[in-house]
């Protein structure tokens, strides 16, 4: 969890996560009009019943195109179980809805994984200067919420951790740890012990890199054995055949199990209705990638599926001023990531967890 996400502000959300008595028969129509399928699932046990009632309510007040769309979406299958025809239908429906909503021609790609491709990523930890261009390139590309007013309205998938370079000092040789408690469990000649492990996210100096710091960007590691996929109760997040772990946003119930399971703090929750100004919206989208999300679903890095399925580098790779970010096909021995694995010293973050990330850190 990032610090941002500890702050529920929306009273409605609060209520639903606490799971009180489900608002069963009270007035389903009133309940249904604004909400969608996932809200029903959230409200607990009697889901099939309330879900059906909701649909009935929707249908009865239809005639309105939007309601028809919602109705179709309501009964949409898990993306992986859809037939090609159903996918095409879902795609057209979404394209129409987004185009109307954002006032421009929006495309929703459904290109499948190509055989012979396994995507991989490598980051030169020595080169990173902490400028955060990758963070903002990612937002420009992937249609994240970018509000500023309420906490949780601004979503960024990449986090750049600033780690202080510590030092060992002669003067502190006899300092104990814990300080002043008689029994010592360790020496403390190192400064700044304790402050470094979690890193700092909000650093904001005039210029980077700072002499006393190193930087470590983190985002989704696209694990080969992803803990988030294991825990998902509705199987909406899964590993695609070419590597990235994706989410079918429509099927997500917002239970946040995956966020708890992820050891890399990679997943973000749409606490509020995403704030995405029309002019900033990127109209080239992928169903499993950067299409606009709704409130109450989880999202994360997917290696710019809308780009990489068409051989284009992810947005973060392209803007890194120092060229620290590398991307390619792990199955192609000529690709830059394969060359890095062959030639450089690489490590995986938290390798001891056996998640087998396809995101590698390296240094010259």
């Amino acid at each position, binding site marked *: 969890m990032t610090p941002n996400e500890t702050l529920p502000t929306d009273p409605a959300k609060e209520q639903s996560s606490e799971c009180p008595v489900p608002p069963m028969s009270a007035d389903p129509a009133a309940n249904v009009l604004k909400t969608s399928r996932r809200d029903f699932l959230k409200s607990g046990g009697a889901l099939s019943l309330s879900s059906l009632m909701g649909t009935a309510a929707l249908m009865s007040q239809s005639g309105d195109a939007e309601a028809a769309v919602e109705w179709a979406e309501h009964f949409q299958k898990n993306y992986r179980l859809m037939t090609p025809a159903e996918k095409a239908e879902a795609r057209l429906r979404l394209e129409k809805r987004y185009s109307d909503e954002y006032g421009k021609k929006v495309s929703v790609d459904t290109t499948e994984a190509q055989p012979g491709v396994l995507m991989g990523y490598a980051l030169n930890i020595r080169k990173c200067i902490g400028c*955060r*261009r990758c963070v903002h390139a990612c937002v*420009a590309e992937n249609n994240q919420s970018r509000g500023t007013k309420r906490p949780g309205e601004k979503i960024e998938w990449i986090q750049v951790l600033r780690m202080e370079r510590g030092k060992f000092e002669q003067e502190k040789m006899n300092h104990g740890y814990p300080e002043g408690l008689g029994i010592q469990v360790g020496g403390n000649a190192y400064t700044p012990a304790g*402050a470094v492990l979690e890193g700092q996210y909000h650093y904001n100096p005039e210029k980077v890199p700072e002499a006393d710091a190193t930087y470590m960007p983190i985002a989704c590691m696209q694990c080969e054995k992803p803990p988030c996929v294991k825990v998902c109760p509705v199987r909406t997040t899964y590993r695609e055949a070419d590597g990235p772990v994706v989410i079918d946003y429509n099927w997500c119930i917002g239970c946040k199990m995956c966020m708890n399971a992820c050891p890399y703090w990679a997943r973000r929750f749409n606490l509020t209705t995403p704030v995405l100004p029309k002019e900033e919206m990127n109209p080239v989208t992928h169903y499993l990638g950067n299409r606009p999300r709704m409130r109450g679903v989880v999202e994360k890095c997917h290696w710019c599926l809308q780009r990489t399925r068409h051989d284009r580098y992810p947005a973060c*790779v392209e803007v890194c001023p120092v060229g620290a970010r590398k991307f390619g096909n792990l199955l192609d021995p000529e690709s*830059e990531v394969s060359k890095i694995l062959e030639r450089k010293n690489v490590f995986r973050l938290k390798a001891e967890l056996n998640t087998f990330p396809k995101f590698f850190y390296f240094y010259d």
Partner: protein
Amino acid sequence: MKKLAIYTTVLALCGGAFYAVSAAEQAAPAQPAPEAAKEVVCFESRKGASEVTQRDIKPGWPNVKCSPKTGAALWYGDPYDGTVPMGKMPGLDKIPEGHAVIKPRSEKLALMPMCGVSCHNGVGPQFSPPTLPKGKKPVPLPTMEAMVPDLKDLQHGRGRIWCMDCHHTTQRNKLVDHFGDPISFDQPQLLCGKCHGDKLRDWRDGIHGKRIGEFTSTGKKRWFTCTECHNPHNVQDGARNRGFVQLQPEPSPQLPRGMKDASHEKLHPIPH
């Protein structure tokens, strides 16, 4: 005495040419002021080394998005904007014709058109004694320092390399290889590679430096050349002294409730 006179003439000529250029540069943006005000230009890797001018490729789809805070390029709609084929490069034969492109450096080098004409014509009897250096050893070059301030205290090689290790003796609008043959300014990798072979190898394999466009190994890519990231006259700059100058960071993430500013993280570390 005679020598001094020639020096002065050279100085006057070069200086004159230089001032003319800088005057023209200052005057240029002044004329189409209302137009220029709207134009968004963002810099790529190193400030001052290469820029992109924002324009729409199709409605609502720009070639580049720039950071409102720092003016840095933040997103590429068209990765090949303003590029030309890289030219012959040993070791890159597997890449299909035209799939390796670069942004030409020579267009950026304001002094280049004059160098070979005004001063270093390489033959002119008038200029040949002072402009063709006697050896490769460092000597003070006040004229050059006036034009390119970085040359005053050349921060490359810690006193062990000098102008003629990189610039061609008689053809000043060219760089030079190990055999004394000219290299185009658009292919600095051939120059840098003669001393930094390991880096050249990594660059060729896409590990050092940067490429944008299609990631497949035979796809079309724009390659960033060495001098788009490194200032050849000052590679020691930067806080870490390792070849890349410092820059202004992009805005930090939204502060969580209860955290007033960035120093909170430092003052309230997670105890262990």
